[in-house]
Structure formats: structure tokens, C-alpha cells
């Protein structure tokens, strides 16, 4: 057994919350730069250049990339040979979020009850997804999720007979309806298969996979490529104001499913697709 102390979890989560909100990952920066080089619309190009400048200002002036610093979504991959010491891991994660959002000058965007809607004041609680794995590793990934794009995300419970065409239509419908609301260029995460909630979780996990990477399954990879091409032919464009860059990536994660079903979840993220992870 390997021991990990809660103090180190608090520190890691705090630092990852701040890092994710001030610096995009390299693949996202490159996707933005490539898009600015290839965008066909003049206004679209100007918007993409301003988004690049926005990233520079965020880094140089210590201002979050976007004012919606998100609800903190945390992925924990916990090796079964790890012992957590000094408290409950969930409490440590929330303490890390509390410290990160306070010390990092991040916006507190969480209300304690969906109907009473009183702000909790420290951006807790986080949404935490735990996965067990073999060995004694512990990886924590913080993915702050803004709600302009989260609100445009969808789950479709298709029938097996709907097949690949049904899946493509579902994704294109979600992207079309999101349009300018989701701050395009978007990053489209798709969860295929599993159950109702498994599809949604897969779609969220698909957002963590880098822009430009692909599924190892050839038929899924082909679908990713076709959907990205068709979405970029839509004309929605940067800011929804027209252009050839509507999405940076369509990432699909799939899982086994039931003989009666074909769940499809589409988790839309804006161009500020934030995630930062660390091994502890």
C-alpha cells in the first residue's frame, strides 16, 4: 500500500483549479492558432485573433481566461493500493476547490440548491467522479465547466435502428441548437452507449481528450472526422457570426450498451476547454 495524505490532495486541487482557469492546454492553444490561420471569414478571423490575445492577457496579467470560471468537475483515478490518510478524500477535494477559487480570484458560481439558489460563496461543492484502477497511482484532473455551453448539452435515448445516422443527426442537432450561445468555436464531447448516465459521463470525459486525437476504433474515428467536417461546413463560425471554424474537435468515447438501446450524450464545451491534471 502507498499512503497519500489529504494535505497533498488539497494543495494539488487548489493549484489545478488556478492553473486550469489561467492557462489552456497546449493542444487547445494550437487548435486556436491553426483556426486563426485557416478561417475564411474576415470577422471570424478577427474574433479568433482576439481570442488568442485573450489567452496572452490571461497569462501575462493574471486574469482568468473567462469570467465563468465554472463549476469544478473533478476526475479522480484511484489505485486500489492507495491509502488516503488524514481525512476523507471528498472533503479534501472540496477544501482544495474552496482554497483555489478564493486565492485564485476565481468566480464563485455555485448555488447550494437548484431552486433556492443561494450562492455557496466558495464554489463548492465540486462534482467529483471517482474511478478505481489497479496499482498504487492516484491521478486528479480538474475540469472547470462553464455553463454557457453546459446549458446547450443534450442526452438522446436513440433506438438501435437509428444507427450511425441517428447518432450523427443527434450530434448535429445539438450543435445547431447551441449555435452562438455556446461560445463557438466549440469542443464537442460525445458519449455513445452505456446507460443514460454513463453516456453523459463519457461525453464529459471525451472533452478531456486532446484536440486532434482520435478514437482507436476505426468506425468511431471516421465518425469523429465526418462530424467535425460537417460542423465546420455549417457556417455558424466564431462567435456564431459566420465562418468556417465552428468546432475544434469532435471527440467520441464509446462503451457497451443494452440490446434495446443507443444512448447518445453530447457535452458541448466552448473554446475555453479547461482541464489540468496531476499524478500524486
Amino acid at each position: 500500500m502507498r499512503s497519500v495524505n489529504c494535505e497533498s490532495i488539497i494543495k494539488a486541487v487548489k493549484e489545478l483549479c488556478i492553473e486550469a482557469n489561467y492557462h489552456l492546454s497546449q493542444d487547445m492553444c494550437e487548435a486556436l492558432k491553426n483556426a486563426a490561420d485557416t478561417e475564411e471569414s474576415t470577422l471570424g478571423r478577427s474574433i479568433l485573433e482576439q481570442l488568442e490575445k485573450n489567452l496572452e492577457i490571461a497569462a501575462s496579467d493574471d486574469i482568468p481566461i473567462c469570467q465563468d470560471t465554472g463549476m469544478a468537475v473533478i476526475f479522480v483515478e484511484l489505485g486500489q493500493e492507495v491509502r488516503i490518510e488524514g481525512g476523507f478524500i471528498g472533503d479534501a477535494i472540496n477544501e482544495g476547490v474552496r482554497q483555489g477559487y478564493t486565492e485564485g480570484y476565481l468566480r464563485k458560481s455555485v448555488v447550494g440548491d437548484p431552486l433556492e439558489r443561494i450562492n455557496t460563496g466558495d464554489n463548492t461543492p465540486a462534482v467529483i467522479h471517482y474511478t478505481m484502477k489497479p496499482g498504487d497511482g492516484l491521478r486528479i484532473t480538474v475540469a472547470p465547466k462553464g455553463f454557457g455551453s453546459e446549458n446547450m448539452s443534450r442526452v438522446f435515448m436513440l433506438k438501435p435502428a437509428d444507427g450511425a445516422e441517428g447518432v450523427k443527426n443527434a450530434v448535429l442537432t445539438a450543435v445547431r441548437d447551441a449555435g452562438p450561445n455556446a461560445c463557438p468555436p466549440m469542443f464537442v464531447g460525445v458519449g455513445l452507449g452505456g446507460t443514460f448516465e454513463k453516456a453523459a459521463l463519457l461525453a464529459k470525459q471525451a472533452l478531456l481528450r486532446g484536440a486532434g486525437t482520435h478514437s482507436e476504433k476505426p468506425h468511431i474515428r471516421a465518425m469523429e472526422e465526418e462530424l467535425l467536417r460537417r460542423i465546420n461546413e455549417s457556417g455558424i463560425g466564431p462567435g456564431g457570426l459566420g465562418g468556417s471554424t465552428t468546432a475544434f474537435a469532435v471527440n467520441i468515447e464509446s462503451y457497451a450498451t443494452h440490446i434495446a438501446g443507443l444512448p447518445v450524450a453530447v457535452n458541448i464545451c466552448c473554446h475555453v476547454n479547461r482541464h489540468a491534471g496531476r499524478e500524486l
Partner: protein
Amino acid sequence: MEYRLSSPFDPEELKRLRAGDLVYISGCVYVARDAAHKRMQEALDAGKELPFDISGQTIYYMGPSPAREGRVIGSAGPTTASRMDRYTPALLDLGLRAMIGKGKRSPEVHEAMLRNGAVYFAAIGGAGALLSKAITACETVAWEDLGAEALRKLTVEDFPAIVVIDTEGKDLYLREDKKVKIF
């Protein structure tokens, strides 16, 4: 076209604007999003006055991140305007003249804008660090308990925005030449 404008806007100047024009806004804009709109509606329902005179004014749909010491404001980009659609026609009828946000508006908002000669601008979504540079002063007007959602008053200088819906009801998002082609 490109224009430099000052807010509160001259109604005649707003009439010149066309969907697709770029503008640089200087002057005063109020800031309100979901919770502040709900409070404004509750005030109106109770027959009370709003905490500011809305006539002729501009509302920016935004909830900033906290300012570091010595700074005016944190990150300050637009939020999705359609969440305010339910409250907006009443505010337009009270004299609200312009809105800054991002994303589509409802038919009811379109109608109320036409009726009142109002304009809807989009700022670049997700460019909160860049846009914060155009904000030179920020004060809380009411409802400080709402935190990021409090009602604020900003002074802006050359704040960049795009005319999405003009006083004639033209909507840039729905323009034929950029209509979504294949879905």
C-alpha cells in the same frame, strides 16, 4: 461599418446602426444577469422602483470574476442573453435602450426591441480577460449579497461589440448569407 459611440446612446445614433456593424462603446453601462433580473422583476411586481433609472440605459449581461488588489475588475466577458429574455420586454418598455451579451434572443424580445427602438450587441464570448481591459471603473449599485450577480455600474472605454439586432429588427445570427447550411 465601424462606429465609436457613447452610452447612454443617442436614439438617433442607434437608428443608424445595422446588424453586423462593429462598435466601440465608451461611457456608462449597467451590469445585470440572472439573479439581478429576477430582483428587478420582483421590484416591478411589487410596484417599487428599480435601483437605477433604466430609461435610455444599457445593460451588459455579465458576472465578473473578483478583482485583484488595485484592479478595477476581474475577467468580464458576456453571458448568454437568452436567459434574461423572460424579463427583458418589461425592461425595454421602461426605456432600456441597449443590451450587450451573446447568443440568440426570443421573438418576444425582438418585438419589444422593435417597439422601443433598442439595439442588441454581442461581445466576444470567452474573451473576459481581453474585455476587462476596456473597463475603467466599476461600482456596485445594489444587491451586493448576490456576489458576482450584483447590479453594477461600469465605466467603459472603447469596449468592442458587434450589432446583432438593430432597430429595424434585422438579426445578424439569422442573416441569409451565413445561415446554417446543412443541418
